[in-house]
């Protein structure tokens, strides 16, 4: 079975050439000089990969007014005053405006006001023509002279004596076994979509908000390497345009369109139960919760009333969506919807796990170093936990800061490339290609399905079915309780322990899907156990614990972290103290 191998050595090894990864490469070149060897392994093609691949129309983090402290205060408020890593968000907020200027110089069109300043959208956003956002981002990495390996799917980190030495993966096109070593490794392979069942089925099952090809690889690899993980007791339930799940900031912040129920009430502004929680600028989870409450109380469907929005801006709505989610414009055209005359229906979508948007999931990091609890392993972007609201511009910046910290680490510690035991490599090679090898031994039914195996999509459906029913999916109104979670645990663990040995992949494309299933199932364990551990409801709308519906500050005003033990498959839990850096009421915005 021995496959052709590709050996790569780097000073800085970056896994995932996305928003964070590309800017990390750029910064590393600026600071590390010409001789630094920077390598990027990307499972797709760097110019069109990741969350930015469809384009975007706004950068959601920019200090248009106020100070970085005000931004931290906003991010904290928007997470219902829950503990967040203020130190990390602060470090990003201090540098974010400079980063945006760098990307503008690279060719990104940023909309301007008549006075020449950036056109802001609300307090913290700036509007862009972001159709080519990813090519522009990628060109930062290319001009930095990073050695880029496209179509290499990374499957596992290599750990030696408590340190991360590199990673392995397979060539999606060439089928080779890739072995990459780095003096430091930056894992920036995004968050996790597709743990729960989407609303659209069959040919619409990827009509979801989060980028479906970020399938939890970053989280699962960190977890398997023994890194401390945080924020899986939380998930983002995106309120988006119904059916296409396109972003709604354009409607809500951009033109001030309120959410209305079937009675025509702008309920966030008019109903006292929501007014007391912040009204139309309530924290993001609260707005998701309110939408669900209105629907459960038979006041749906819920719409965003574009008729009450700024008419000038409503007129440009289609254009704005073409820069980011063109399918919504076609959807309107096919369904006789004219958004300046008809309200736009919205919905709470299947949950996603993210670290840089309105989510908290990711690896725990030490101080502002971006280093995980495993030496030499750094994370950025959606892979970094407990520091929400970084978005695109903050993720670019976070990538830059990760690179700075890594270079400082290399300079200070002078790490050398580690020798990898050949037997360990053989073992990793077998593991990487296992589903493919299994398929080759299969016999087949008349319909072409393998008799001895389960294909990745069948396993994905089973996993989504379990998570939907027992871990609070959309059709369960995001409700969970100990009894349901114990069902989820039992079934997901059955899949992880006993079923993966049947997973087969017919070709290299399906081998990626097989690894997506393996990784997602590992993430499911984190989600089930961390939600179970947090016996309170701190983020209503995102995680509603019907058995513990209130906030319990005495026991849970802290971060919950866990470390996975490969011997027992158990998670060891810890509570990390929250450190408030920006003074003030956590449930108020400072400006």
């Amino acid at each position, binding site marked *: 079975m021995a496959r052709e191998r590709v050996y790569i050595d780097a000073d800085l090894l970056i896994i995932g050439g996305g928003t964070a990864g590309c800017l990390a490469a750029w910064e590393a070149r600026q600071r590390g000089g010409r001789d630094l060897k920077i390598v990027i392994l990307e499972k797709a093609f760097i110019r069109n*990969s990741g969350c930015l691949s469809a384009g975007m129309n706004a950068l959601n983090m920019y200090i248009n007014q106020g100070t970085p402290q005000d931004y931290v205060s906003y991010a904290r408020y928007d997470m219902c005053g829950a503990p967040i890593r203020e130190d990390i968000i602060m470090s990003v907020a201090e540098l974010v405006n400079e980063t945006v200027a760098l990307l503008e110089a690279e060719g990104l069109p940023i909309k301007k006001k008549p006075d020449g300043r950036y056109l802001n959208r609300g307090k913290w956003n700036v509007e862009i023509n972001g159709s080519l956002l990813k090519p522009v981002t990628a060109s930062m990495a290319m001009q930095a002279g990073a050695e880029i390996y496209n*179509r290499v799917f990374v499957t596992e980190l290599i750990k030696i004596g408590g340190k991360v030495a590199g990673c392995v993966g397979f060539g999606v096109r060439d089928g080779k076994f890739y072995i990459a070593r780095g003096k430091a490794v930056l894992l920036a392979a995004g968050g996790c979509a597709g743990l729960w069942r989407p609303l*659209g*089925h*069959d040919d619409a099952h990827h009509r979801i908000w989060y980028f479906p090809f970020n399938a939890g690889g970053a989280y699962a690899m960190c977890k398997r390497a023994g890194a401390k993980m945080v924020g899986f007791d939380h998930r983002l339930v995106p309120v988006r345009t119904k059916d296409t799940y396109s972003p709604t900031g354009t409607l809500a912040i951009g033109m001030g369109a309120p959410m209305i129920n079937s009675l025509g009430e702008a309920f966030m502004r008019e109903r006292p139960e929501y007014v007391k929680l912040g009204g139309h600028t309530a924290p993001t989870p609260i707005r998701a919760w309110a939408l669900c409450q209105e629907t459960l109380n038979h006041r749906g469907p819920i719409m965003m009333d574009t008729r009450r929005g700024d008419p000038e801006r409503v007129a440009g709505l289609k254009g704005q969506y073409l820069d980011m989610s*063109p399918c919504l414009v076609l959807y309107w055209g096919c369904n006789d919807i004219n958004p300046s005359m008809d309200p736009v229906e919205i919905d709470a979508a299947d949950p996603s796990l993210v670290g840089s948007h309105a989510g908290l999931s990711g690896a725990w990091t030490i101080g502002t170093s971006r280093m995980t609890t495993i030496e030499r392993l750094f994370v950025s972007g959606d892979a970094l936990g407990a520091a929400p609201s970084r978005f695109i511009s903050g993720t670019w910046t976070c990538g830059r800061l990760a690179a700075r910290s890594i270079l400082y680490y290399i300079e200070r510690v002078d790490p050398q490339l580690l020798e990898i035991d050949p037997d360990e490599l053989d073992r990793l090679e077998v593991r990487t290609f296992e589903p493919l090898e299994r398929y080759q031994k299969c016999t087949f039914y008349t319909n072409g399905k393998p008799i001895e195996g389960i294909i990745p999509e069948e396993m994905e459906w089973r996993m989504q079915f379990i998570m939907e029913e027992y871990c609070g999916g959309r059709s369960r109104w995001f409700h969970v309780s100990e009894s349901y979670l114990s069902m989820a645990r039992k079934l997901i663990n059955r899949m992880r322990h006993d079923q993966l040995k049947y997973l087969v992949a017919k070709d290299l494309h399906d081998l990626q899907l097989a690894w997506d299933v393996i990784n997602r199932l590992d993430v499911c364990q984190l989600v089930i156990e961390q939600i179970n551990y947090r016996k309170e409801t701190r983020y209503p709308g995102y995680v509603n614990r019907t058995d513990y519906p209130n906030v319990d500050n005495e026991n849970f005003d802290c971060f919950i972290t866990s470390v996975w033990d490969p011997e027992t498959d158990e998670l060891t839990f810890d509570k990390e103290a929250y450190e408030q850096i920006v003074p003030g009421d956590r449930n108020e915005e400072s400006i």
Partner: protein
Amino acid sequence: MPPMVIPDKCDGCQGEGEPLCEQVCPGDLMMLDRSVNKAVCRNVGDCWDCMSCTKACPRQAIQTRLQYQVAFFPGKLIPLVGTHSVTWTLIDCRGNVERFVMKTLAGDEEEE
């Protein structure tokens, strides 16, 4: 909004090492059907509708079609990619045509 390849327009990107649509897809979905030398999306259900392939095709051979479970037939949305802008043509199900020119890169303000 899965991509559908119109056979008469697609030439399989002759001369390219790898067809452009195949090169760009973030989900590794576009591929060349070697028997006819034309591109095909290997699993339309896995597509995220990013339209990278549609925009990259030099022959405008890829038509974006919404899943019928969410949208009526026969609306169309066609991008025409320029160096500093994209011109989008929306033809809704009633046959109404709208055109939008969206900037993509800074510079060359004169174009279109």
